[in-house]
């Protein structure tokens, strides 16, 4: 029983909740402040850094969330051993 327990990996519930909450918050701000966001993000020139920075920020937070989400559901890369 002890052996079986140690082979079960802990599910990343905490990380899913944390990154999920931040991700939802980011999307909420983006959609609720559409006017303000569009006003600044399309000014061009130096403001061009805004969409690029936003893309990196969203990809970091949402990328972690989605990664942990699939791990939580047990969908992970194949273990090294060969399937026959």
């Amino acid at each position, binding site marked *: 029983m002890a052996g079986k327990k140690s082979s079960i990996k802990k599910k990343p519930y905490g990380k899913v909740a944390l990154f999920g909450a931040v991700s939802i918050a980011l999307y909420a701000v983006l959609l609720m402040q559409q006017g303000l966001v569009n006003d600044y*993000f399309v000014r061009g020139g130096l403001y*061009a850094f805004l969409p*690029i920075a936003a893309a990196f920020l969203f990809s970091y937070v949402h990328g972690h969330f989605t990664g942990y989400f699939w791990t939580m559901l047990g969908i992970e890369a194949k273990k090294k051993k060969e*399937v026959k």
Partner: protein
Amino acid sequence: MHEVVSFVNLDILNIIYLFFVGFVGGLVSGFIGSGGAFVLTPAMMSMGVPGLVAVASNMCHKFPKALIGALKRAKYGQVDVKLGVVMGISAEAGVMYGAHIQESIKRAFGDAGSNLYVSVAFVVILGIVGSFVLLDAFKSKKTENLQQEEKITKIARWVQSINIPGTMVYFKSLNAKVSVLFTIPLGFATGMLAATIAVGGFIGVPSLIYVLGAPSLMASATELVIAFVMGCGGSFKYALHGLVDIRLSMLILAGSLFGIHLGAIGTTYVKPFMIKLVMGVIMVIVLFSRGLMVPVYLSQLGVIQTLSEPTVKVLKNTSFAIMAFALLSGAFIVLKAMWQGIRAEHKVTAREALEHSKE
């Protein structure tokens, strides 16, 4: 240089639509290194988004997606960062040149001329490269069942044998030194195609496999690095003109990041020929989709007899439906292969546990 653009109103249906198309596109990208973009741009335009904003917003979702995909697949040891960056920089130059050609064609022949050029590029390139990739996928399927190693092509063997002093770089995916005089034009062509049909990977991945000799899994993973480098620069260029609608980019990204993890995980469960199969299937189906539009643009240019309004509508809708079908077919093959792989692994694990408990 700031251009004034009008942005569409987003309702809940549009949001779900973007999320879903993003998810399917991400799934395919995670698996074959690119794809999805050819559906996303027309999908956004069908919502009323102006063409340039659709292209710009698509690109701004592509590079962060490619980054996450590349990081994920690097964990599986499938990414050759050096090759990706070298090809990515030359691809950036290709994007600039491709965009310049597009602009010149648009100036000379108008929208219909530009659309015709894009469709013909789709048909010719996907026709040649797509059918080659698909045929090779079927051939590889037969041989890979007997042996695990992928055979490298004669061209790749020749490319790897050429020594041009001062230009040789070692690439781990090729396990050989190759002259950058070969990688630069390949990267450039990838970028040019990306600027023309939005999916550089349809040249990038096959050239990495067949011309340079990279294994399929590493080629499709390295393409993500190329897409990141190319997309980051391209997005910045569009953002300078205020053309990126960040809401669209981030909503597509929301779905595509779910997809890209899944697609990347999928690559660990399949034999390498599956990469070629998915890519070949998508390329060949998309080819028919764009082929249907050629008569529409020819009639707009007055080369052939003018088509009636309902005919144009039917052709346009059928073309879009075939394109969506191409992406969904790719996604279906990926999910099916992954599902079978996971089940096979579970069976092995269960059998081992049973044998272990008997001992």
